[in-house]
């Protein structure tokens, strides 16, 4: 195959665009697709301070690389989840990238901040690791942005991530989740007038137009040393099975994923606007983060604080779970 731009030998083919590119023009193509997405969805302004969540994987490092090349003021945020050697190696990848580009990187650790790792949290709360992991990542990411005055949070969710999530939400008709699935999650504010303060920093996904195969190819061509291994905790999870099924469909009909997602945004998303009658978003009484107050709920506590408290109680009960003996 030949490069669509310069007719040199191509190294990447993108079937849904019916195009192939040499290394240089592929990098240029990805960069311009990301720039177009930022503009189209009005994700941020040129002088905004951005905080990008980096895991050490291909998507987040590619995104960081692209944003730096596009000239944005972007800092990396790495959260050490304490998943054994996997976390150690992914942290090394994030730090090595930051050093190589002289980019700013914030590093935090769940064990240091809250006294547990993701595997410990899963054991203590008897929930799947991905649930506690996601909850803690969202919480810490928002907290870091609020504390350090970042204007926008940026994540490396790619087209395949969004399509798999959309597919899952449609399969289960999670209408509330469908109402919230968008490339831009707007800022949430508490109070008004002089009392007003940011509760949730806006969160954006500039890679929604880029397939996972393309972020991997981009990283490889750019010489980004990302962590190739999978998180050992997600082995065989639902999201992965959806991606495999959807990729099988994409193989037969290139462009299916992109149409499914972008036509959802254009034609359907507006019909699922989040509506939870009888609820109100209020600050958590323990940490001040936004949470939903139900009509019957007097003192609202957010899911992060509830989960952390549960883990703390179980940890104090000792290594073996004991049967409950009445109220403590």
């Amino acid at each position: 195959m030949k490069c669509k731009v310069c007719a040199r030998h191509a190294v990447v083919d993108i079937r849904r665009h019916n195009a192939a590119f040499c290394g240089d023009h592929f990098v240029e193509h990805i960069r311009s697709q990301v720039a177009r997405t930022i503009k189209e969805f009005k994700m941020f302004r040129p002088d905004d301070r951005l905080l990008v969540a980096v895991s050490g994987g291909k998507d987040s490092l590619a995104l960081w690389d692209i944003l730096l090349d596009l000239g944005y003021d972007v800092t990396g945020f790495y959260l050490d989840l304490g998943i054994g050697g996997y976390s150690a190696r992914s942290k090394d990848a994030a730090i090595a990238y930051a050093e190589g580009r002289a980019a700013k990187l914030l590093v935090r650790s769940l064990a240091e901040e809250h006294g547990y790792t993701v595997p410990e949290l899963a054991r203590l709360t008897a929930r799947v690791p991905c649930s506690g992991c996601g909850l803690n990542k969202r919480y810490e990411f928002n907290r870091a942005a609020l504390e350090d005055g970042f204007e926008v949070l940026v994540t490396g969710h790619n087209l395949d991530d969004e399509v798999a999530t959309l597919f899952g939400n449609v399969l289960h008709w999670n209408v509330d989740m469908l109402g919230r699935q968008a490339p831009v999650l707007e800022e949430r504010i508490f109070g008004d007038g002089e009392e007003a303060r940011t509760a949730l920093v806006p969160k954006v996904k500039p890679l929604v137009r880029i397939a996972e195969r393309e972020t991997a190819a981009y990283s490889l061509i750019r010489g980004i040393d990302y962590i190739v291994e999978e998180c050992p905790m997600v082995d065989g999870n639902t999201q992965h099975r959806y991606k495999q099924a959807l990729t099988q469909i994409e193989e037969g009909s290139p462009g299916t994923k992109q149409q499914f997602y972008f036509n959802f945004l254009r034609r359907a998303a507006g019909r699922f606007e989040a509506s939870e009658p009888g609820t109100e978003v209020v600050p958590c009484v323990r940490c001040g983060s936004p949470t939903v107050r139900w009509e019957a709920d007097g003192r609202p506590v957010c899911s992060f604080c509830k989960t952390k408290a549960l883990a703390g109680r179980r940890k104090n009960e000792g290594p073996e779970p004991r049967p409950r003996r009445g109220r403590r």
Partner: protein
Amino acid sequence: MSVVDVLRRLDIVPESVLVIRDSTLLTRDERIDDEDEIEVRPVLSGNAR
């Protein structure tokens, strides 16, 4: 044999991997010789995001 032929023979969906030879990416029509050493790198992650 082409990249896509090799992948189909291995029962791998071509869209789900990158194929690399001597640190260079290969498009699906590229020829692979018997002596070539190639890496087939999966690209689909299972992040629960």
